[in-house]
């Protein structure tokens, strides 16, 4: 019994010394055979199971007490040391030491492995590695990450540099468009890899260390654990930087493909280098299926990151991309792919909305700018999202804003019928196959199989609207729908046309063509008036020619005969023409009466254009002016000095208007106000250059009642109704008034009023004491 105990003791001591790595002991480890026999003895006594437990226990304590602290010492000892550039040895030496310590355990692990009974779930080696990782990394000093990152980013740069050198030496290889550093350092003295002078370049060393470390980490099974985070961060940085450098502000070519290529060729090859070692060299390692899988996952994640970064960049530049449309088409197409692969839609919407608010929707932008930007927005967002949901989400803001501008309608109409063909809207109008604006027109001959192609709306779509309503591809209809009614536009077009004709600033053929194009959109009936207007112009021309050719009169008066009913309401202002001119008008009228029997003319003397030649003592002037302006100067022909009142009586023009008109001649230096209220003709004066000049002030003033005035008239009508209502029904709340107006005043009229507008209007009446508001009800004041 004692012998067996002794035997057991001896065997145990053999096993313990044999299995533990002999650190600093001179005694040679027992050979395998000795170890085996010792183990057999233990086995014989049925205590062999202790061995494994014991082994792991001692390993753990060794890790805790020796290996771990020694390892971490490397990083804390050097805290205050000078920051050495490039891959410093710390990391490598630390890990190589760690590697040595651990590998001393490995033979024993092998031995034990062989002893284990079959069917054990986990291999001992895995268990050891697990314990190792757990104990070593349960507490990591902050600095460690920094060191790792530093090391890997150096290695990455060095690696890139080497790759580039290789590429340079083999000119056959095609150079990608993304070689942005290519030209930067051809002559520079520093190495792109380690940023040191070329002679002292440490790239090669760095790379050697790098491979060494990777190999060690791999054998320790720590590769991903230690460097994963750092590598990801570095690659992310690199991707961001690369995208910034190559793509920022460049909208004219597609980048996604080159970027993907770049990612695969440069970045992923590096990743492979880390995990697989240099291909074809001694460092190459077999990659387990698991690592391969994680590499693949990594690749997908990086690709996603690439798309996300690129998408984010483009989204931040979206406003400029829209400005440059259609040159920025490529960028848009890239972004479209990005949006499909990532979830950046929401970011796009909010960022674009705020960019628009910041850069476009402010008083500094003219309405036509806002409009053209809106058109570009429509076109660009259609590229991104053919369903129109994005447009709806973003464009809303501009549409709301446009509604608040007074001149939107006029600008749209002007845009549609622009003089130069350059306007976007005119182009849009020219486009064939216009969609008629008739409401409720169903698409005919719709593909019966269309439902098979149905796709759900994107998730951010407003479910209360049909997808069809969004898909309307026509920009003009979109613009017109800002206001919800086309009557407004037709009226405005009529007034624009009227202004053009009356300021004699038109090209008949072009106007006719415009009219035809507009007819296609708005329908024949709506534009009947405009047609008559243009026909009037043609007829007038004929009549003028006739009157002239028959020599019925010898003066240069040409009439523009207007069929008053079809024209917009013209501002009626009085103007008494000088007798000499009036005579000619009368004779024209007579001539007209002979040409067109039983008809006569009602002149609108304030409209039109006068071609004047003025001769003064020392100068001559030739001007085209408004009749009022011309009449003023004609009066000065007879008399050099006029007071404002005298002139006003003679011309039957209010003095306020007159004063404004006279400034025209004051600007020319023909008339001087001296003393105030009295105007004197300057026979001699500084010669004024410029022979023919059209009064620019005149151009801006329109002959027709502006839409704002028209609106006021409409409001006046509503006011009459409101008065009628309140006279009979005493007092009513706002909503009731609104619904009554809707029922009784708006039924046959195209005009409309919103609740808010009505409230504002009624409140203004309350302020001017034409209405009383008490208890939420409006009423008329008593004793009116």
């Amino acid at each position, binding site marked *: 019994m004692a012998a067996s105990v002794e035997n057991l003791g001896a065997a145990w001591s053999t096993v313990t010394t044999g299995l533990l790595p002999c650190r600093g002991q001179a005694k040679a480890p027992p050979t395998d055979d000795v170890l085996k026999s010792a183990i057999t003895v233990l086995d014989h006594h049925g205590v062999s199971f202790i061995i494994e437990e014991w082994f792991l226990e001692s390993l753990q304590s060794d890790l805790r007490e020796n290996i771990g602290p020694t390892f971490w010492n490397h990083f804390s000892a050097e805290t205050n040391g000078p920051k050495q550039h490039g891959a410093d040895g710390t990391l490598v030496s630390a890990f190589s030491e760690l590697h040595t310590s651990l590998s001393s355990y490995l033979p024993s692990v092998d031995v034990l492995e062989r002893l284990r009974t079959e069917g054990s779930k986990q291999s001992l080696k895995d268990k050891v590695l697990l314990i190792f990782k757990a104990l070593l990394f349960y507490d990591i000093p902050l600095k460690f990450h920094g060191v790792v990152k530093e090391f890997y980013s150096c290695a990455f740069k060095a690696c890139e540099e080497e790759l580039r050198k290789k590429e340079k030496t083999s000119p056959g290889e095609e150079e990608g468009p993304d070689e942005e550093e290519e030209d930067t350092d051809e002559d520079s003295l520093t190495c792109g890899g380690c940023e040191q002078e070329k002679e002292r370049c440490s790239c090669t060393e760095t790379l050697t260390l790098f491979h060494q470390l990777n190999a060690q980490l791999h054998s320790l099974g720590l590769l991903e654990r230690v460097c994963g985070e750092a590598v990801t961060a570095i690659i992310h940085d690199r991707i961001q930087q690369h995208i910034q450098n190559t793509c920022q502000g460049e909208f004219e070519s597609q980048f996604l493909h080159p970027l993907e290529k770049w990612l695969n060729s440069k970045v992923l090859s590096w990743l492979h280098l880390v995990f697989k070692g240099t291909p074809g060299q001694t460092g190459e390692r077999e990659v387990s299926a698991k690592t391969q899988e994680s590499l693949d996952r990594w690749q997908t994640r990086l690709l996603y990151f690439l798309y996300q970064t690129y998408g984010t960049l483009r989204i931040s530049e979206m406003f400029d991309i829209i400005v440059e449309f259609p040159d920025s088409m490529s960028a848009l197409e890239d972004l479209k792919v990005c949006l499909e692969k990532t979830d950046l839609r929401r970011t796009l919407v909010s960022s674009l909305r705020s960019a628009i608010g910041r850069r476009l929707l402010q008083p500094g932008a003219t309405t036509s700018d806002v409009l053209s930007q809106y058109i570009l927005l429509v076109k660009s967002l259609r590229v991104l999202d053919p369903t129109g949901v994005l447009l709806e989400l973003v464009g809303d803001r501009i549409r709301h804003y446009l509604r608040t501008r007074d001149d939107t309608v006029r600008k749209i109409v002007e845009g549609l019928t622009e003089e130069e063909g350059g306007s976007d809207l005119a182009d849009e109008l020219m486009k064939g196959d216009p969609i008629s604006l008739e409401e409720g027109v169903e698409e005919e001959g719709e593909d019966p199989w269309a439902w098979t192609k149905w796709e759900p709306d994107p998730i951010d779509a407003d479910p209360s609207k049909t997808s069809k309503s969004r898909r309307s591809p026509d920009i003009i209809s979109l613009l017109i729908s800002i206001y919800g009614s086309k009557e407004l536009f037709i009226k405005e077009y009529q007034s624009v046309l009227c202004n053009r004709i009356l300021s004699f600033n038109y090209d008949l053929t072009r106007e006719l063509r415009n009219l035809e194009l507009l007819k296609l959109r708005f329908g024949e009936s709506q534009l009947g008036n405009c047609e008559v207007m243009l026909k009037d112009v043609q007829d007038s021309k004929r009549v003028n020619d006739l009157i002239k050719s028959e020599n019925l009169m010898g003066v240069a008066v040409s009439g523009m005969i207007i069929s008053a009913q079809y024209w917009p309401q013209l501002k009626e202002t009085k103007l008494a023409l000088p007798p000499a001119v009036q005579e000619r008008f009368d004779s024209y009228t007579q001539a007209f009466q002979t040409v067109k029997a039983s008809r006569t003319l009602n002149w609108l003397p304030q409209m039109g254009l006068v071609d004047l030649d003025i001769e003064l003592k020392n100068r001559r002037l030739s001007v085209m002016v408004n009749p009022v302006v011309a009449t003023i100067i004609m009066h000065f022909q007879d008399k050099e000095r006029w007071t404002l009142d005298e002139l006003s009586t003679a011309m039957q023009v209010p003095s306020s208007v007159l004063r404004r008109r006279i400034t025209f001649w004051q600007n020319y230096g023909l008339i001087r106000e001296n003393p105030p209220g009295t105007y004197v003709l300057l026979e001699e004066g500084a010669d004024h250059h410029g022979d023919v000049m059209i009064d620019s002030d005149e151009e801006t003033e329109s002959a027709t009642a502006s839409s704002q005035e028209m609106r006021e008239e409409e409001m006046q*009508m509503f006011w*009459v*109704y409101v008065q*009628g*209502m309140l*006279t*009979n*029904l005493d007092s009513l709340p706002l909503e009731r008034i609104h*619904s*009554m107006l809707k*029922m*009784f*005043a708006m*039924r*046959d009229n195209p005009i409309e009023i919103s609740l808010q507008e009505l409230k504002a209007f009624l409140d203004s009446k309350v302020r001017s004491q034409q209405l009383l508001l008490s208890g939420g009800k409006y009423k008329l004041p008593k004793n009116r």
Partner: protein
Amino acid sequence: MSSSQNVDPASVAPQQREKDTKDTRRGEKHTVSRRLQQELMGLMMSDDKGISAFPSGDSLFNWTGTLTGPLGTVYEGLQYKLSLEFPQGYPYKPPTVRFETPCFHPNVDEHGNICLDILKEKWSALYDVRTVLLSIQSLLGEPNNDSPLNVHAAGLWENQTEYKKTLLERYEKDVRSKDFS
């Protein structure tokens, strides 16, 4: 008196009518609404002093009218509300007009019913809300004392001072006091 304007064209051919009574009914109603709508607009746009009317609710067939007594008569300065009810056959049939404000007048009874020939046998499709209101307004100053509904008022009419006194007393009692209570 059989003025041809008073014949509803829809009633001319009864056989035809039976076929699509519903359609014509709807159509009829539509044309009546149209006419009333136009009358309303005309009334709003006209500048008549002292008369006014407006639909009282959602229907175009019930209106409330307001008129003030004509200047120079005992009714000067007094305001009266009326109700106007338009039949489906309007304007071929007269509207039913009634004073809502109690009115002391030879031709108005205590329920507000008005005795006015043009609202009865002398109605013509050429009349409209405006003319009806104007007629009633002038009736105030020129009562028809031959067929009075209010005998007391008719008897009093000759003595204008006494009449005015009674009128104002009544108006005060029936209208103003209720208005301000």
